[in-house]
């Protein structure tokens, strides 16, 4: 039973979060900061989430390719 639950959880983790959990963590943090800025500081921070998404993607790509070479298939 526990093994089935673990497999189920692992499947959904891999399905949604994928290879880089830090991208997901950054995005959730950016959403939380956006909500705080809007509701507490009254700042309409529409720009924050896209900027954080691009930064998270760049950071993830940099880590994925650091010190690695290519397939030569592009």
């Amino acid at each position, binding site marked *: 039973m526990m093994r089935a639950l673990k497999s189920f959880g692992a499947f959904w983790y891999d*399905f949604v979060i994928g290879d*880089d959990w830090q991208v997901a963590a950054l995005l959730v943090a950016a*959403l939380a900061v*956006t909500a705080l800025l809007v509701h507490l500081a009254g700042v309409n921070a*529409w720009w924050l989430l896209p900027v954080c998404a691009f930064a998270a993607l760049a950071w993830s790509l940099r880590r994925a390719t650091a010190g690695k070479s*290519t*397939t030569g298939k*592009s």
Partner: protein
Amino acid sequence: MNALPLVLTVFVACAVEAIEALTIVLAAGLTRQWRSTFQGMAAALIVLAAIVGVLGPTVTLLPLTALRLVIGALLAIFGLQWLRKAILRAAGYKALHDEASAYLREVAAAQAAPASSRRGISDWYAFTLAFKGVLLEGLEVVFIVITFGDNQRDLGAAVVGAAIAVVVVAATGVAVRAPLAKVPENALKFLVGIMLTSFGTFWGAEGAGVKWPGNDAALLVLVPVVAVISLGYAACLRRPHRADTAAGPQAPVSQAEGVSGL
């Protein structure tokens, strides 16, 4: 928002998944046995329809703001995952997805597997191969249909987009009786990653309380900006590749990331 962008986005995303499912179904049917393959496919479609039937209307009961926050966040995370893989493929750091070689791998495995019947199914291997293939690829379709449909309060339009994609891909597969290797799948995956990330970011921020400049029209700017920046990342990563290939090709970062392969 007009239903057309919704239908088109869901159509392209679902077509990509349907092409991958078709490859697995064809490998099972042509190599093993069509009857068990169709039974596996039908069982998976029933499970997927049940998930949409239960989850779709249930999720709609949530308040729109909470729905957009949660679904938008999930969609943006999911979209960035697609985009990351698409950029790594475009830049040559990850092997391109190739339906022809995927088909050959599935055929080799299907030919090597022994025949056995279970629970009234004459070829259990063909049944499970078709069931798993359609279910796993179909789950991504369900995820996209529910997130897009519920967020736009137009589940029907999303279902129509998905259904058209599945019918078109299935009909083409029946006509050519081969994996759809000529479809520019890697470019489509890049496009889907851009759309999922753009819509996820838009809805997630709206759920957090943001008012986008121009409301829904902001998407007309956001989608091209995500596209340009993503293509820019791919171009930047591709530059060192040219120098590398002069020295000879080396091992890729990974050729089998993730449960679904995206």
